[in-house]
């Protein structure tokens, strides 16, 4: 009985001592608008459309991001350039609905759509959260600095014909059965 009382009083005392010690410590609070902690490169916030190392739009309007998006907040219209590259005529993301899951980034075959650490995107009017293509486009490569889809795709454009790149073999004539 006595030891029990002693134990519980000791436990209480330890608890109070612990909180009291914290009173004397310097707060570890980071004050937000004054101090903005640099976020890791891979943190997921505002979505951008990046360009390839040649400075051309990466997005080929394949609709993969749009179809994988769990809240269906991406929509676009595809079109084709004279040089044979596909692009998005318009591209729209409703960031008011986006849950920043990053699935669109995962799905994108061209590394075009990327999530950036810039999270300060609140708007007074919710309609301003609908980002059009010009709001989304940036002139850099984002996280993926080297990848150029058209250098690997085996698609005929102005710069490359099929099978002309040094890691490619000549295309097979599927209409014939000769090796």
């Amino acid at each position, binding site marked *: 009985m006595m030891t029990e009382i002693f134990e519980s009083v000791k436990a*209480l005392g330890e*608890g*109070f001592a*612990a*909180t*009291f010690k*914290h*009173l004397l*410590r*310097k*707060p*570890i*609070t980071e*004050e937000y608008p004054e101090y903005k902690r640099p976020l890791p490169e891979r943190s997921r916030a505002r979505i951008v459309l990046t360009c390839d190392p040649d400075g051309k739009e990466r997005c080929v309007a394949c609709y993969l991001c749009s179809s994988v998006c769990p809240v269906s907040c991406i929509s676009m219209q595809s079109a084709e350039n004279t040089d044979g590259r596909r692009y998005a005529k318009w591209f729209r993301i409703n960031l008011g609905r986006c849950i920043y899951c990053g699935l669109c980034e995962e799905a994108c075959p061209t590394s075009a759509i990327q999530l950036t650490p810039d999270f300060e995107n609140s708007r007074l009017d919710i309609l301003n959260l609908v980002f059009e293509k010009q709001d989304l486009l940036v002139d850099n490569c984002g996280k993926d600095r080297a990848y150029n889809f058209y250098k690997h795709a085996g698609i005929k454009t102005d710069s490359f014909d099929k099978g002309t790149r040094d890691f490619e073999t000549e295309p097979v004539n599927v209409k014939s059965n000769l090796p």
Partner: protein
Amino acid sequence: MITWIAGLIVLLIKMALVLGVLLFLAAYLVWAERKLLGRLQVRLGPNRAGIFGLLQPIADSIKMLCKEDIVPEAADKIIFLLAPAVVATTALLMFAVVPFGPEITLMGKQVPLVISDINVGLLFVFAMASLGVYGMALGGWASNSKFALLGGIRGAAQMISYELALGLSLVPVVMLAQSFSLVDIVNAQADYPFIIVQPIAFVIFVISSMAESKRIPFDLPEAENELGAGFHTEYSGMRFGLFFIGEYVHMQVFGALIAVFFLGGWRGPFLPPPVWLLIKIIIAALVMIWIRGTLPRLRYDQLMEMGWKILIPASLINIIITGAVILI
């Protein structure tokens, strides 16, 4: 007639002063509590409104005044509207019997520094304390919400676990002071504060008065993780504010009562009496905040068990021993 009017004016001034100080202190206790809890948790606490967040209470009250005052469709309207006032008023009224200084002479007249020295002051305090719980239980019931109802019921259960220990813990004090009047109790401590001879009663009183003012770890009626906000779930705007003010006035009142019953009330060297009382109140409040920052909330049954199995027997034994010592 003239003296009667003068007396009335003095009384009104005293009331206005006490009320003003109580409400002002309640507002800044909220600030102090948030600040201190912040520091206990190694963070900053409010610091946006004014330097050190000192304007926070003002910002909070403006916000609460501007918020919509919602009365739920199915609530018992009149009782719902009255309950917060009951809590806040009873808390304020309790201070009416707390002496904050000795008699002073003002223009050749004796002015006692207490709003009303009634000879059953202690009973008045208990009556008001239980009425405060009544307001809370009514508020919980009138909201017609299950969470609020449960909160109210818990409040009532808490009252029957603690009111008894609260009352019994003060019996030795009354035996020592030979009076129920708070003024006499303070006067009886002219030589030494009662905490020296009644440490057990002091501990029991502190624990039960914390339960009475629904402070953590005894905030079962508003347990946010299981009951939403408990008895004030359905309240909004200034009505919620009244509950809130009630709690902080309660804190001060119990700080004052702890001072009056055990720490010698307004007695102290050098400083003027009301300042001493204020210091004691603030120290009691700071300790309460410290306790809040340390202990987790008790469970319903633990609370009743503690009340009935530990505090009440302990205070009964304390009474018997005190009685025996006084007789010898």
